[in-house]
């Protein structure tokens, strides 16, 4: 048989093969799926579960901070004597909660939801692709993430409990910590592998699989945001992997990468060779973790930009400067990391360099935020739930960003660095900032994933409750921080006399957190109830212009009924003289 007929026969067999597999079984459809939409939903749901779990850890911590040393017998019974004997929290357990809250929120909650969830589900649809470029690698990425999550959760049950050295795992404390830290490191290696596989996939998909006519400057802003984010994940995570490998060597093989000479632990001199450099860990960690901050925020920028353009019925104000700012931001995020380390006693020359780059990187962030705010100008705004969350994002991220400026300057950072001011600052960026952006995205793309809208009333209760509670939680922390209360204290500052006048704010924060948990209930109910009972909608319920709205809701395997084509830029709303109020990218 000649080569040609062989190929034809193989092609025919392939068609038959595809027809035979019209209805893949349960496992292939929902668990081991290679469909980007299913993987996106897997990521999003797992991410939401981890967000809820991480939030629960924090609610426990808030109890200890508001009422330090008070017994909570019920919790004592549930969590056992090794953690809360008689209901009084042990310091080690508090440390576990703190380290795991940060780790879970950042690496298992927000990033999987923002990049794994929204990136996987929305990006291929928005560029008119049938799937990701490497569907099986995509599946492997989710599986690695899942294994990483399981490893992190398992670490709560090993002797000595989970990691206790903060989400930053600073050496040398982390090197001499209990077994949980080894699990943390192994879990991180899984998560890094997962994000590497994802990042390669996103970049390749964006470059190769965009629809005909969809040039780079016709990308929706969300695609740009994911594109830059993927580069950050691709290039910033490997140094943490290197650091993780070295810390693992320190813990398992007894090396001294991060252990200086002459360490004495509990009155005993360590037998390690010594000569290592604890600051090396900090450099490698923050070399990842500062770009990671932008990994947290850029997808939210993208989501908010989509929703603002759609609900103001106007093009984005300054699309091109926003895109250029995004690229510049991504580049600069690699040269600011040591502003997290002003307290390490670095020289003034180093500090001057890093505070200068930090001030420079604030410019593109401000450009993007300003462009988003100016996009509202003169719009006839539709106040639906996604738009409310997007609007809430703007001032909340603004507060978070602007309060970061004093932390970027060496001189003002030193008195503020170890206080609650820092906690307030970055939580404003990530919690009412990024997470509001993510909620906005869930309400916005839910109709695409299910064919039904989420309930507006429940959504508005969720928004207003969360907005108020977020501020009740975090605004007092600015005051605590400015009063000098350290963020590293297990009793929330009760042992320091100078903190006494502001300690009541801890109680305010805590009640804010617990009440906010209640305001998440409407969201959880809405999320599940709307799958079957939400208002049925067509393919383009928001009258949007980007390509994902030309696919059926929910999109079938392969996404589009016919290969889509882009005829114009992404946000042609209210074009003067046009026949319609909006000109979709995908309509000729």
């Amino acid at each position, binding site marked *: 048989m000649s080569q040609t007929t062989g190929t034809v026969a193989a092609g025919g067999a392939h068609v038959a093969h595809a027809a035979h597999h019209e209805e893949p079984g349960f496992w292939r459809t929902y668990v081991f799926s290679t469909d980007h939409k299913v993987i996106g939903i897997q990521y999003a749901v797992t991410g939401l579960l981890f967000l809820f779990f991480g939030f629960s850890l924090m609610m426990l911590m808030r109890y200890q901070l508001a009422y330090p040393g008070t017994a909570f017998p019920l919790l004592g019974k549930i969590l056992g004597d090794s953690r809360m004997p008689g209901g009084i929290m042990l310091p080690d357990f508090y440390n576990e909660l703190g380290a795991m809250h940060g780790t879970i929120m950042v690496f298992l909650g927000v990033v999987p939801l923002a990049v794994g969830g929204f990136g996987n589900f929305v990006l291929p649809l928005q560029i008119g692709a049938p799937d990701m470029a490497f569907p099986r690698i995509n599946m492997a990425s989710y599986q690695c993430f899942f294994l990483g999550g399981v490893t992190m959760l398992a670490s709560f049950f090993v002797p000595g409990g989970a990691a206790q050295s903060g989400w930053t795992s600073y050496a040398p404390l982390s090197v001499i910590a209990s077994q949980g830290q080894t699990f943390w490191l192994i879990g991180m290696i899984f998560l890094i592998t997962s994000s590497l596989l994802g990042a*390669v996939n996103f970049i390749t998909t964006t470059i190769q699989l965009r629809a005909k006519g969809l040039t780079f400057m016709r990308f929706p802003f969300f695609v740009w945001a994911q594109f830059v984010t993927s580069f950050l994940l691709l290039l910033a995570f490997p140094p943490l992997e290197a650091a993780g490998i070295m810390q693992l060597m320190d813990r398992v093989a007894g090396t001294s990468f991060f252990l200086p000479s002459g360490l004495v632990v509990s009155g005993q001199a360590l037998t390690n060779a010594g000569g290592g450099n604890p600051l090396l860990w900090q450099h490698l960690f923050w070399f990842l973790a500062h770009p990671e901050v932008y990994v947290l925020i850029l997808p939210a920028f993208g989501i908010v930009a989509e929703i603002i353009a759609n609900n103001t019925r106007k093009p984005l104000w300054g699309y091109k400067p926003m895109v250029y700012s995004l690229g510049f931001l991504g580049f600069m995020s690699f040269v600011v990391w040591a502003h997290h380390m002003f307290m390490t006693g670095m020289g003034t020359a180093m500090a001057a360099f890093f505070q200068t780059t930090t001030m420079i990187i604030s410019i593109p962030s401000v450009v993007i935020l300003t462009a988003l705010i100016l996009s509202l100008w003169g719009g006839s705004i539709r106040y639906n739930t996604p738009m409310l969350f997007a609007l809430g994002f703007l001032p909340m991220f603004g507060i978070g960003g602007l309060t970061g400026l004093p932390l970027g300057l060496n001189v003002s950072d030193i008195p503020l660095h170890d206080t609650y001011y820092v906690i307030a600052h970055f939580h404003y960026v990530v919690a009412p900032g990024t997470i509001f952006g993510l909620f906005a995205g869930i309400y916005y793309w839910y109709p695409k994933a299910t064919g039904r809208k989420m309930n507006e009333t429940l959504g508005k209760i969720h928004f207003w409750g969360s907005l108020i509670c977020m501020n009740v939680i975090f605004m007092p922390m600015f005051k605590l921080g400015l009063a000098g209360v350290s963020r590293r204290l297990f009793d929330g500052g009760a042992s320091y006399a100078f903190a006494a006048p502001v300690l009541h704010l801890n109680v305010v924060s805590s009640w804010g957190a617990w009440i906010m948990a209640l305001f998440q209930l409407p969201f959880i109910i809405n999320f599940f109830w709307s799958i079957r009972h939400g208002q049925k909608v067509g393919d383009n319920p928001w009258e949007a212009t980007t390509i994902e709205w030309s696919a059926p809701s929910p999109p079938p395997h392969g996404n589009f009924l016919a290969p889509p084509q882009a005829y114009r830029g992404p946000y042609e709303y209210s074009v003067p003289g046009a026949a319609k109020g909006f000109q979709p990218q995908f309509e000729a």
Partner: protein
Amino acid sequence: MEIPYTVEVRRDTGLTNGKIGIWLFLASEVMLFGALFASYILIRTGMPVWPRGDTILNVPLATFNTIVLISSSVTMVMAWASLKRNRFGTFRVYLGSTVLLGGVFLLVKYFEYSHKFENGLFPRTSNFLALYFTLTGLHMLHVIGGMAVNAYLWGPGAKLWKTNPEWFTNRVENSGLFWHFVDLVWIFLFPTLYLL
């Protein structure tokens, strides 16, 4: 459903998906080893004394291994070139040699490692040895990974040649790019650890 541009190139980028994917992966690998080399510099400059590599490590063996790896890169290219010339038999010989040369490298490394262990030299002994074992260990994992992919392409993966020769050739090329990278890492590791 077919993913476009797995075999044919996209006209405006001139690339297949796999080609972009492997280069992105290599970029992240550069960052991984880059971070380790940077750590080497920081740790070395922080130490009052640092041994010269040839006082502890076996330079002739490592030189031999360098030649082995470079040869394996040559056979890798020849394997790909054979496919381009439609000579499947020669391809198998060259790719097989690449895998075998990788095996020789690992064997030599095994003797080096066990010799160190016999003399009581472990990662914990000194920071020099810690770096040596970590860097070469991670590099060996990459060698094993590359050998596994090449062995797959030599054996079961070669079936693709019959149905889609162009795709198969691309796969060999991408695997080769990774193999050359692994080779290149060794070319940096050898002087850094053994000679400086």
